[in-house]
């Protein structure tokens, strides 16, 4: 166990609580929104894409566990990168983490809109925002996003217990879907496994990676977890594995019960699947209702949680001098980082208006992949430089294979994004460097593990001191002078 100064909080979270946080931030949006687009890209192999994305997430989850047990401070991946690689990469990671969450929130909100649209279809006339026509899901997403931003602006309390309930409700709904579906799925419809070719798995993996964002959230509460060296990695890795299994099995069942062409591209594919699965037991409408409810719940809770996560990153960057601390100031009455929430919220609304669901998902993924890649690099730096005070309770197995593979795969997956997202990642790197040059460089001294190792941070500075009372004889004069 590291020093006692790391946290003032009591260690109250056990393995189950930590796992719930991990699963809670992941479960939901991915499986409720992405099966349609993923099936369109890769067919039944979309299930493989979910597993592959989960595997990449597991590698990073292991690295994040080690880093979190070494320095459990608020800020998550951004913090580890800033401490390991310094403020240049810290700027890139902070902005990436923050904007990535904003894109992901926009994606969840539009996903929510997808589920709302059929419920209110026909009631609301099509609207446009100036020259921009808005689809029904976008409109629903905008309304939902405004609500989530408002809720977070007004209070951060009371979402914790609710989150637990949501996790179990979602797992229950998906579990029921899987149980009923497993007897009905027609395996022959899964052939051919790779209708779009083997290569199609990679872009599909890149698309669905967004489903796993948030496993690193567990790291942000590392200081409150009992026996973190044991429970943290188990919760993080276990969460990813559990979620990956649920996603992959649901995907297989979905394509086993409905024709791929019928759901390709649909934002509510799983509800279409539910109509068939539950229809076989005579209650298709119940199934659609349940899964629609699940879709609304999942996208809403994911969106709600990421608004707050994004503002936490603003806070951590402000604390480290990488961003103006006034941005993360706490509202005196509502006790929330209101400015940060407004800024993040504004971006989310813009993203909803200009992006469509797949590009929002990919934008969220690509920025996080960049961050996760850097996180793995940071771990290697901490280990190799034997940074002073780096003493994690948990150490990744098979070092250096795990972090190296985690970094390489994260960066490689960026290559399978569409051109606009690759450009977005590149722009973020450039933007991070520019931000460092114009804002951070003057304010922050690089004291990262890397800088220490390069010797560019002096350990100490010695100052000459000369006091003017060398001899006892002198003292007499001084005493009289002083009066």
């Amino acid at each position, binding site marked *: 166990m590291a020093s006692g100064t790391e946290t003032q909080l009591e260690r109250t979270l056990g393995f189950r609580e930590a796992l719930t946080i991990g699963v809670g931030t992941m479960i939901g949006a991915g499986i409720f929104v992405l099966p349609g687009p993923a099936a369109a890209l890769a067919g039944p192999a979309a299930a493989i894409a979910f597993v592959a994305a989960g595997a990449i997430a597991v590698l990073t989850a292991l690295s994040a566990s080690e880093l979190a047990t070494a320095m459990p401070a608020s800020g998550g991946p951004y913090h580890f990168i800033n401490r390991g690689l310094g403020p240049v990469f810290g700027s890139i990671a902070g902005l990436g983490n923050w904007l990535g969450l904003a894109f992901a929130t926009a994606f969840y909100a539009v996903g929510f809109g997808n589920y709302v649209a059929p419920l209110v279809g026909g009631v609301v006339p099509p609207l446009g925002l100036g020259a921009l026509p808005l689809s029904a899901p976008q409109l629903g997403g905008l309304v939902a996003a405004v609500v989530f931003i408002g809720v977070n602006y007004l209070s951060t309390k009371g979402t914790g217990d609710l989150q637990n309930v949501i996790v179990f409700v979602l797992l229950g709904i998906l579990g029921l879907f899987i149980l009923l579906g497993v007897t009905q799925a027609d395996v022959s419809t899964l052939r051919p496994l790779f209708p779009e070719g083997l290569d199609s798995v990679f872009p599909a993996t890149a698309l669905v990676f967004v489903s796993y964002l948030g496993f690193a959230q567990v790291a942000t509460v590392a200081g409150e977890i009992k026996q973190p060296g044991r429970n943290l990695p188990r919760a993080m890795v276990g969460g990813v594995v559990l979620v990956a299994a649920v996603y992959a099995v649901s995907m297989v069942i979905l394509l086993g019960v409905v024709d791929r062409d019928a759901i390709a591209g649909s934002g509510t594919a799983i509800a279409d699947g539910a109509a068939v699965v539950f229809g076989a037991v005579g209650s298709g409408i119940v199934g659609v209702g349940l899964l629609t409810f699940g879709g609304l719940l999942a996208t809403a809770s994911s969106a709600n949680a990421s608004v707050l996560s994004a503002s936490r990153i603003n806070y951590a960057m402000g604390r*480290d*001098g990488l961003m103006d601390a006034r941005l993360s100031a706490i509202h005196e009455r509502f006790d929330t980082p209101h400015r940060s929430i407004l800024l993040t919220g504004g971006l989310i609304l813009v993203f909803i208006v200009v992006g469509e669901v797949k590009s929002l998902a990919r934008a969220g993924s690509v920025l996080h992949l960049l961050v996760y890649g850097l996180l793995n690099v940071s771990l290697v730096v901490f280990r190799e430089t034997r940074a*002073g005070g780096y003493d994690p309770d948990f150490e990744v197995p098979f070092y250096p294979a795990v972090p190296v593979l985690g970094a390489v795969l994260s960066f490689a997956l960026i290559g399978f994004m569409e051109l606009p997202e690759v450009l977005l990642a590149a722009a973020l790197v450039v933007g991070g460097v520019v931000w460092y040059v114009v804002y951070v460089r003057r304010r*922050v*001294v690089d*004291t990262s593990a890397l800088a220490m190792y390069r010797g560019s*941070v*002096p*350990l*100490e*500075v*010695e*100052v*000459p*001191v*000369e*006091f003017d*009372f*060398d*001899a*006892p004889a002198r*003292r007499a004069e001084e005493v009289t002078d002083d009066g």
Partner: protein
Amino acid sequence: MIDDPTLLIPIDVSAPETPPQALVDLLEPLRIVVLGHYPVPDQAAPRQIQETHEDEAKAAMEPIVRRFAEQGTDVESVLVFTRDHVTSIDRVANEHDCDAVLVPGSVGDLSDVLVSLKDEQNMFRVLEVVGFLLEETDPDVTLFHSESVEKGSAISELLLRGATDWLTERGLDRDRITWREPSAETQTSDLLELAEQHDFVITGESEPSLAERVLGDLPDRIHDRTGRAVLVVRKAR
């Protein structure tokens, strides 16, 4: 042999504690280097902290250095802004050829001193420092040999008798010197208990001492347990 024994006194100038007058009196025969160290937090450069806190740090050091200077002690002062004061203490101790390092603390009325003789290499150096300090002053001395394996060990007894003779020849009154042997199982805790019963502790650098740490952890443990000042005599470098 130590000709001109030099003592390093590290002071955390961000929370300075002035050494008690009794200790200042006792240490008068030694050449003294007062090392003020000011902590540099993780996200800052030493230069930055120096710019903002140099005056404050010097002001905190001044009265402490003044005390020794007024006593007529040969005193030097060094101020560092450091990320790791242990490393800085070690460096300054080496650069200034310090023979001993003080762990500052309380000394009560300084009527008795515990001297822990541990390893043979260092023993004469410890005794010499004791000689320097106690020639001119009058606290009682308790010698303690922590290496004896069995109570009543002949080697331990001869060693303690020899040390007593050595100090007597040096000019200390034999009546001032007593000695204790530890029992086998409880050496460290015996030392800690004895330390509690004395006003000041003089010991050799502890073994095994970590590669880059001057003091090893025993003096710190004595200090933490008793709050007493501990003077640690370093090995010949």
